[in-house]
């Protein structure tokens, strides 16, 4: 054998040996790492699962993802020929020829638009921009924005007064209703409107306006859920009544029948006081609609959409046919529209006393008396409109960038309208579809979105009992921008979202088959890369801190108390909550463990957009940020605070309220570091 040949054999041999030397221990190490991060032992060791699909910025993230439209709500012209579609992720109002089924115009609007309505003459559209805190008036002839009117925080649902003089805007984040005088094109009033409202409906005679809340009253754990519908007198533009809807929440939308005899609300009936492991025994979550009688006893009655062994989770929009005979409810968790026979509902209301109807709101078999049909839709059906002639129902299928078209004579699907979004289904987009779909839960009872509406949290406290019932009462945590904030859960037991949503998730929460690994890849990718914090326009609109917030920052950073004593390191806010995530990702006992909790230290939560996450503490006992320290900070275990005056506490809370997205915080840190260097 020649030397040359020997050399040729040596090189690959050497590589092989080195490779084997690396492969076996490397694989062993990878196996251990993946087992730890996934809590399973049979993951196929695909590095891309975590190390590619969870990249949330830069060119790789751009390459992996695509710009979808994500239609949410719609309006339709009087002649039924034109649809106006809010494309939430594209910040656009799309003008669609409903006959040719073609997008004819893209009108840029504000950030994260939510709803659109048309003026009576059809000349203007009004668009609420939820992440810009304004409403835009769009001149439809020129397809241009003519006016931008500031509103409260997080504008969503819209309605016009019957004389077209006032525009009513529901402010979801600030929980109020903006009244805009359209002649002056300015906000003239802001009226309180429940908790996290979105839905709005004007009575046919124009005298009454309803606004439905999504979040429930904040009550101690153990008390039933109550959520408000607020009634406004439109002649005075004042709050006239508050209706408490028992054992319901997430009342996304409302509608009146054309005759005005009934007002309808989409709603969810949570059983958050029941241990979550009970999901397999049924009705952990129920989904339905409420009816507010406008005549007679004016009762508020709830009806289920669900049926035995099959749930119709996450009802979003509710609409009444032009003849008032049927209602349509889009259930984004199961990709269905339920057709409700309203004459059957009227008959039930007439023939059953309130007590019996209240009881029947728990009866899964009762829906057979009024559900006429379930119409399949595209991915995540949201807002709906009906053509003026009553022949077509259009539905925004949010997660496949289509508008579904349904023939209302046959209740059959016609060809949908393709809005022209990207044809590729990215991993994160698939994850979003999985996130909002209840298919992964026993009998479709709920999706991830149910407890995490807006990919955030629902404000409820759940009994996350393990094997010992009645333990570990848990406040739902937000999923906004949680990448880089591991570990997860209040006890920090999950090192990764992959682990959080894997086998353990199905064992405790969904009680059905675990997500497949490709599905887990997708779900984790969406959760970690696709959920952003809305800009903190409520408390920090300009990015500059107010005088009170600056004083609060000094308190947050302080090392010495009011008496000149050095505060132990553990007693300083900034020790456990350093920017940009305001978490040190470590564990601490802040003295709030209750007797029913397992003995744990708490994973330090991040504080970005903390103002939007009430209630607070692991079991939601603090209704406001103030209560963390006024009621539950007694022994200075959760920071040294007892030397502070009320004014100082207010300043500290003003600062905490100002905290926004970690991305912005990180930029500020860079600027700060650069300034220090210079």
């Amino acid at each position: 054998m020649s030397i040359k040949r020997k050399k040729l054999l040596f090189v690959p041999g050497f590589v092989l040996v080195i490779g084997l030397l690396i492969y076996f221990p490397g694989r062993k190490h990878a196996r251990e790492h993946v087992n730890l991060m996934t809590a399973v032992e049979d993951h196929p060791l695909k590095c891309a699962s975590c190390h590619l699909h969870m990249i949330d910025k830069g060119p790789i993230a751009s390459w992996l993802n695509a710009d979808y439209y994500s239609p949410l709500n719609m309006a339709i012209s009087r002649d039924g020929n034109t649809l106006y579609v809010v494309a939430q992720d594209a910040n656009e109002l799309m003008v669609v020829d409903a006959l040719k089924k073609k997008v004819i115009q893209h009108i840029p609007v504000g950030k994260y638009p939510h709803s659109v309505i048309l003026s009576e003459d059809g000349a203007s559209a009004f668009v609420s921009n939820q992440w810009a805190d304004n409403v835009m008036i769009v001149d439809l002839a020129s397809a241009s924005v003519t006016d931008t009117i500031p509103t409260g925080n997080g504008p969503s649902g819209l309605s016009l007064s019957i004389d077209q003089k006032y525009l009513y805007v529901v402010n979801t984040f600030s929980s109020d209703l903006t009244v805009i005088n359209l002649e002056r094109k300015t906000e003239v009033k802001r009226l309180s409107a429940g908790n996290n409202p979105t839905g709005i409906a004007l009575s046919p005679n124009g005298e009454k306006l309803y606004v439905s809340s999504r979040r429930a009253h904040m009550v101690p754990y153990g008390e039933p859920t109550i959520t408000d519908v607020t009634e406004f007198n439109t002649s005075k533009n004042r709050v006239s009544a508050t209706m408490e809807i028992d054992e319901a929440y997430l009342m996304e939308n409302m509608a009146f029948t054309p005759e005005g005899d009934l007002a309808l609300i989409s709603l969810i009936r949570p059983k958050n006081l029941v241990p979550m492991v009970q999901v397999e025994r049924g009705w952990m979550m129920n989904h339905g609609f409420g009816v507010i009688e406008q005549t007679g006893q004016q009762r508020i009655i709830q009806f289920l959409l669900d049926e035995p062994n099959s749930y119709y989770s996450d009802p979003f929009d509710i609409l009444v046919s032009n003849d008032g005979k049927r209602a349509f409810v889009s259930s984004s968790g199961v990709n269905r529209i339920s057709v409700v026979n309203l004459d059957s509902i009227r008959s039930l209301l007439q023939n059953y006393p309130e007590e019996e109807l209240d009881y029947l709101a728990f009866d899964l078999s009762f829906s057979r008396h009024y559900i006429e049909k379930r119409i399949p839709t595209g991915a995540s059906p949201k807002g709906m409109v009906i053509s003026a002639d009553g022949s077509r129902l259009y539905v925004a299928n949010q997660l496949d960038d289509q508008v579904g078209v349904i023939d209302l004579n046959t209740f059959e699907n016609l060809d949908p309208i393709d809005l022209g979004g990207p044809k590729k289904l990215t991993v994160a987009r698939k994850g979003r579809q999985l996130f909002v779909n209840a298919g992964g839960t026993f009998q479709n009872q709920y999706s991830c979105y149910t407890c995490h509406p807006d990919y955030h949290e629902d404000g409820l406290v759940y009994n996350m009992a393990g094997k010992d019932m009645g333990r570990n009462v848990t406040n739902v945590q937000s999923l906004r921008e949680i990448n880089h904030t591991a570990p997860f859960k209040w006890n920090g037991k999950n090192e990764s979202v992959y682990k959080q949503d894997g086998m353990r998730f199905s064992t405790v929460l969904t009680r059905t088959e675990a997500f497949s690994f490709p599905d887990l890849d997708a779900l984790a990718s969406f959760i970690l890369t696709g959920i952003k914090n809305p800009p903190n326009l409520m408390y920090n609109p300009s990015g500059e801190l107010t005088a009170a917030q600056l004083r609060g920052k000094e308190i947050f950073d302080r090392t010495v108390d009011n008496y000149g004593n050095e505060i132990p390191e553990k007693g300083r806010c900034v020790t456990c909550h350093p920017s940009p995530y305001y978490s040190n990702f470590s564990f601490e006992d802040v003295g709030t463990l209750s007797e029913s909790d397992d003995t744990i230290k708490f994973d330090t939560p991040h504080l970005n957009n903390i103002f939007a996450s009430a209630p607070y503490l692991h079991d939601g006992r603090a209704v406001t940020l103030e209560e963390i320290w006024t009621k539950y900070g007694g022994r200075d275990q959760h920071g040294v605070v007892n030397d502070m005056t009320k004014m100082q506490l207010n300043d500290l809370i003003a600062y905490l309220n100002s905290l926004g997205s970690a991305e912005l915080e990180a930029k500020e840190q860079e600027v700060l570091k650069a300034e220090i260097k210079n």
Partner: protein
Amino acid sequence: MKSKFNLTFFAFLTLLTFGIVSMGFTRSEKSPDVKESNSVPIYGNWKNFTKDNGLPGNKTYAVRVDGDRVLVGTHEGLAVYEDEKWTTYTTENGLSHNGVIAIDVSELTGDVWLGTMGGLTRWSGGKFEQYTQMNSGMANDLVYAVICDGKDVWVATGGGAGKLDTYTKEWEIFTEQNAPMHEPWTYSVCAGDNKVWIAAWGGGVIEYNKKTNHFRDYVDPDGNMEIDLFPDDGVVHDITTGVSYSNGILWAATYFGLSRYDGRGWKGYFDHDSGLASNFINYVRSVGDYAYLCTDKGLSITDGESWVTYKKNENDKNGKAIITNGESKTEKSFSPSISHNFILGVDVQDDVIWVATSYGLSRGERIN
């Protein structure tokens, strides 16, 4: 002879005319026609409400007319009089505390704001929402006064004054640490013409300019003496219990007399030199040109010149109105009269007055 007669006749005529005119003036002072001679409103036809006819308790602290209904703060909750029926709301309905000591209604939203002995409550569309020193940025739970000023709600509490911006939901607190107060105890607050005035215990009147966000104080130049050494040199005492502003006039009540400020100078009023029922003033409310003064010895109404004071007889349900014009005083009897002489709250709308007393609520109708 003729000229002497004429002179005598002329003198007689002159004296007669003078005499008639003089008699006329004298007559009108001694026997006033209440409908014509006095511009300060006089109320009669009193009707009283107590626990016996619908109030939840006899101790009433505050009253506010809100359109067709009357809101009454009592020691046992909020009592609402509508369609001649009383309805009571308590902590069971969502009130912060049953002792309701201050009430205001937002002109902008129609929301009712209630200052109680245990926090502030917003009553909107039948829903009660609580703000306390524990769950919000409010300074203290003892809320002596509440007023709505556009989108802002101001409170005077035992731990400082405070402002809630109902749009941003943020509180701002004003105490001796950031305002020229003697101590944080505040009793009253009012607003007008881009200014807010706070009655601060021991601190006189604190003026807050909303345009500049600056404070200034008005204190007693006599150094907190219980007598007003130099008249009209400033607010009559630093222990202020009430402020109210209307028609460009600020009225400041103290436990030692009343002050009126027109933006240029102060004028003091006391029970010994005016028609004021007592120097011990619990509350003042001004409407139009008139100040309504709730004292421990009756209710007084004034425009700064004339006075009408209502007092109940000690031993029966009857009483009187004492009408003071300069040096002259006349009285008019009523049966019944106001419910009690210890007055804590008052409100007027059109020709009707409602008076909250320590024993019942009184309703009177204007008779002049």
